[in-house]
């Protein structure tokens, strides 16, 4: 069953309900996170004066669920050893890609990172080509030369997805510089994680973007872990969004698990950029529900993570796909039957993509030298 309505009243994280004092130390900056969520939601409810856009809500839901189901469809092939490429699953962070990309046009640019299946799909990348690439097949978007961590779809504005942490921030900067020179009114989004805040290039890029008022959104998906390392072990100030302020960049710190909030904030940010008031920095507080890499199911002490069970449960209660489903139901935008129909349609589409990937050929070993130069 897809509907798991185990969270509290929509939007509010109730401290006394979800944060028991005996586990507070196990949480990553739990007080800050709850404050941010509260502020995000208050702001959102102010913004609810905006007309409710049913089509947008359904689109957001569908995009998120499509990402979730696509990611989860990889678990079995990974466990069977069919998929060997390191796949960093986006499960739990879907509200960010969906919310941001819903506000972009096909011509706008995005750049991603090692955990970017979600960005690729949300921006309009081909599901079939992505799954085939994860299977390292010739029919993949990178012809089996890239694997999970090198996805691309220039026609849909997915200009680059690579795993060097912070490696695409400067590339996104350059794409936005190109837009500024050409006056083509595009916006570029650079998706990176909290781990990327340890790389100097982020600060170089923010400085230059501010200097030239470039139409770029620095989208920091703060999932609280830099691979295995909790955020409190990589920085003194947990508030990443504040790092943009000295550069004179407008910045937000918001609940990254609520797609209504991510979408609304992204809309504001995109509008700023289109009006020549960029850059913008958005810190999305979120959590990956699987391990750093592969299908690690977060059983404490195994695989890539050692994360407190209570912390994981807290975030499971904030599952973004559940939140949007609950919202659609409570607001009577969708019925359970309608949601199940979407679920079934997406599952068929994904099953077809998996089949396509499995049946496709691996690259020909005789073509190992192909593509070194254009």
């Amino acid at each position, binding site marked *: 069953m897809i509907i798991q309505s185990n969270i509290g009243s929509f939007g509010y994280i109730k401290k006394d309900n979800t944060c028991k004092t005996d586990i507070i130390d196990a949480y990553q900056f739990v007080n800050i996170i709850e404050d941010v969520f509260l502020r995000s939601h208050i702001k959102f409810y102010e913004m609810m004066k905006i007309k409710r856009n049913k089509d947008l809500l359904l689109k957001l839901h569908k995009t998120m669920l499509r990402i979730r189901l696509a990611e989860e469809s990889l678990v079995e092939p990974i466990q069977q050893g069919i998929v060997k490429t390191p796949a960093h699953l986006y499960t739990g962070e879907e509200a960010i890609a969906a919310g941001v990309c819903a506000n972009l046009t096909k011509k706008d*640019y995005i750049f991603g990172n090692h955990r970017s299946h979600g960005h690729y799909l949300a921006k309009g990348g081909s599901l079939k080509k992505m799954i085939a690439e994860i299977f390292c097949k010739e029919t993949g978007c990178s*012809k089996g030369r890239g694997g999970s961590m090198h996805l691309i779809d220039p026609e849909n504005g997915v200009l680059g997805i*690579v795993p060097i942490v912070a490696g695409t921030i*400067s590339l*996104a900067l*350059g794409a*936005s510089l*190109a837009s500024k*020179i050409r006056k083509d009114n595009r916006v570029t989004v650079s998706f990176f994680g909290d781990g990327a805040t340890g790389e100097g290039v982020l600060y170089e890029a923010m400085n230059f973007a501010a200097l030239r008022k470039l139409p770029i959104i620095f989208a920091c998906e703060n999932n609280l872990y830099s691979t295995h390392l909790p955020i409190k072990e990589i920085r003194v100030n947990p508030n990443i969004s504040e790092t943009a302020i000295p550069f004179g960049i407008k910045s937000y710190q918001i609940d990254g698990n609520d797609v209504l909030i991510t979408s609304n904030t992204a809309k504001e940010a995109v509008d700023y950029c289109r009006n020549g008031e960029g850059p913008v920095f958005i810190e999305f507080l979120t959590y990956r529900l699987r391990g750093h890499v592969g299908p690690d199911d977060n059983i404490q002490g195994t695989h890539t993570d050692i994360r407190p069970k209570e912390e994981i449960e807290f975030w499971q209660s904030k599952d973004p796909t559940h939140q949007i489903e609950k919202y659609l139901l409570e607001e009577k935008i969708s019925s359970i039957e309608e949601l199940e129909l979407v679920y079934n349609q997406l599952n068929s589409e994904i099953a077809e993509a998996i089949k396509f990937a499995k049946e496709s050929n691996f690259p020909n070993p005789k073509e190992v030298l192909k593509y070194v130069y254009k």
Partner: protein
Amino acid sequence: MSTNNRKLSYSLAINEALKQLMEIDDSVFVLGQGVKSPWYVGNTCKDLIKLYGEERVIDTPISENAMTGAAVGAALAGMKPVIMHPRGDFALYAFDPIINQAANWHYMNGGSSSVPVVIWLVVNRGGEQGAQHSQALHSLFAHIPGLKVIAPSNAYDVKGMLISAINDPNPVVFIDDRWLYNNECNVPTEMYEIPIGMALVKQEGKDVTVVSSSYLMLETIKAAEELEKIGISSELIDLRTIKPLDKDIIINSVKKTGRLVIVDGSWKTNSISSEISAIVNEEAFGSLKSPVVRINLPNCPAPAARTLEAEYYITKDKIFSEIKNIFKH
């Protein structure tokens, strides 16, 4: 091609290539530290801002990593950027965008997009500047699949090759040497391209093949003149492109002369001279009448003191004596 006899310096030939391309192609732009400052870049960027404005001629903060990455990203978005590093050493901050990103891009994305960027590193050695203002890194970049590396030796070549580099759909590392900047030769006024990947037999000879490039080509030519006087006829090959290497022209020449000397301004270990020597051993071993001779920098960082600099850098005299020695045996 024009046969006019206009003399132009190496640095102004660079300037002319940039101006002519920027004039006809809006996607070409230049960014780098000091494009406003002759102290940094000589007259290579003369009048560019006046002609094309600060939107397309960008003097940047000292942020080599982000600025080089920005050039790569702009290339991915359809531009043809030239990112200039007036002291090539500082470009080492930008290994990620150059190597991880630009060099790998076309391959790792299965040919879906390429990176038409020129990464321009100026070698600014001598004058007691020491280790971090002196490094010639062409061999290092030549190790990397996906990069092209050019090092033209004269004004005519640099204009044609820079135009080719900017129009090339692949990332090109363009390494020049400030010691060449005042060197003049005949340069046509119109635009022309010299293909990347083609070396040139600069002078035909019968006794020894001497491969050289960039500034050292000038020293090699002078040494060859001296050698001629003592009866040694040198066939001079100007590499022009370090990668992809024009190995056929070298092999054919070695087959004719039977001897090979490589004059290379990088450190000896794992340098382009090692590569050329290996290729000749693999493909023309039977033609060699004597062992290959490599004239490189000693395997130490560039020193500052003038006494050490004099020992460190390669001169025409050193080339002369090394080649002369071959014929003693």
